């Protein structure tokens, strides 16, 4: 539908200071649209977790956020090692983050579970050695 709003973001590799730019921008836009505050909260938390994952576990990537009249669709595509065991990765507290990442306060193993919790639908498709694609939808 041409009425939909589409925003594209690039997540750069190994740059923690910039991770969160996409979610901050989306949050601002959703507030300007008058999206209910609970939805704004869920979208920005899910997207921020996703952005961090793209920096921590992959080598950056692209985010596309589409806003339609009834939902918000977030597509996160990274170039990276992929997730060997998605089921395990979805468990709370499970993390493969390195010590240096943990030292920064990340890698608590809550990323994917939080993303799932905050979205109404989440699909993960991952290819080892190529990258991961996550689609999240939050209904309005």
């Amino acid at each position, binding site marked *: 539908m041409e*009425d*939909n*709003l589409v925003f594209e973001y690039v997540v750069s590799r190994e740059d923690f200071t910039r991770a*969160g730019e996409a*979610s*901050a921008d989306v*949050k601002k*836009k959703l*507030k*300007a*649209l*008058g*999206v209910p*505050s*609970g939805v*704004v*909260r869920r979208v*920005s*938390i899910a997207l*921020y977790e996703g952005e961090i994952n793209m920096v921590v576990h992959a080598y950056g990537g692209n985010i596309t956020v589409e*806003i339609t*009249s009834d939902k918000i669709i977030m597509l996160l595509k990274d170039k990276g090692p992929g997730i060997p065991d998605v089921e395990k990765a979805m468990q709370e507290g499970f993390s493969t983050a390195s010590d240096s990442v943990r030292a920064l306060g990340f890698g608590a193993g809550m990323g994917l579970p939080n993303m799932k919790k905050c979205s109404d639908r989440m699909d993960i498709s991952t290819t080892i050695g190529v990258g991961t694609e996550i689609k999240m939808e939050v209904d*309005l």
Partner: protein
Amino acid sequence: MIDKFFHSVSLDVDLCKGCINCIKHCPTDAIRVREGKASINSKFCIDCGECIRICPHHAKTARYDRIDVINKHKYNIVLTPPSLYGQFNNLDDVNIVLNALLLLGFDEVFEVSAAAEIVSEITRKYIAQHKEDCPLISTACPTIIRLIRTRFPNLLCHLLPIKPPVEIAAEMALERAIQKTGLPREEIGITFITPCPSKVAYIKSPLGIKKSEIDYAVAIKDIYPLLLPFMKEVDSASMNDLVETGRIGIGWGESGGEALGILRDDYLAADGIHNCIRVLEDLEDEKISDLSFIELNSCDGGCVGGTLTVENPYLAAAKLKKLRKYMPIAVTHLDESLEGELAWDENVEYEPVFKLGENMKESMLKMARIEKLEKKLPGLDCGSCGAPTCRLLAEDIVRGEASKKDCIYYLKEGVQKYIEEINIVSKGMLLGNNEKQVAALQQYIVEASQKIFNEHYGDQMEYSEGEDYDD
């Protein structure tokens, strides 16, 4: 939406030169320059005073009461903020300030810091009883409440619903005055010596309470020169001991002071409006956990950094540290029978002032237009159009408050095209018969276009690019 709020921050139109300093520094993007003068959008303004700080022409001012309110009533009470004590050199006893205020003409003086000690106590209790609302956000800085009310609806539940010290001080002082004098309320005047415009706005349009008991606000910078001679007159050997505050109360004058008063270490204290916004964004994104309390002060350094103070905020804070060194921890304590009266009596509701349209559909259409427009603008954020950024000009255009022609790059493009066209037309005319007539016409057109060009750019900028098209 009709704006029902009183704002202290205002503009002196005569002094405004229409420069872009204020629009670039406003944390809520509330200011635009239109027709050569700044104008403040009162729906967005949170009275932080950043524009007052930055304006090189002193065109941004704060509205507050003149000093003659001292004698307006039969019995006049003055409320002193701890930030006031940080303004003076070598002050070693708060009593000197308090006694000088009596010599200046006030009938009674009451320290806001005394009420602050009560708020510290009740905050400790509130934190213990409301774990689910933690981290609680301090509500002593009215600008912070206004910011959260318009930008962070998810965080309204974290606001500490306790009256600010200045209000509790007014109530306590009033009760004391009525008991002492037997006068009716209207014959008693309550004046607060304010460090900032935000508190003035609070007094006129409070949030969290229906009405403030405070009648007037005078600026620290106005009372400071008047007070100095009286402070010299105070005889420290025979002056009255009026101080009812300890270290906790005095500490409230600077950033981190309120948080120290909760006697816990799981807190965060931020000062400066932009830093506060960052903290609130992080709290909203649930990046902050395991904290009980968040102290936020809009001004750098806390209340000592208010725009109506005279001293450098960091020097003032150093002076407060020295002043309170030998004071007791706290002097004024919570009277539990009055606990119920210290809570807010009104909810603070979300005001979605930044919303683009009346409904989602309208907002989406507007945002799509903004995105499209933004791509056509130069992206330099030069501010010459009167909006802080190209993005905000695009937003203003879509809201119907500005035009694309306000962008000088866009205008320049248009004028250049115009000159080119005129040159082509005039060259065509040269091929005609009556050469003299055509030359005169060409001359006229070139002059006219140059005039239009100069009008757009002003005479101070003699722009000669038109000549490039002559040959």
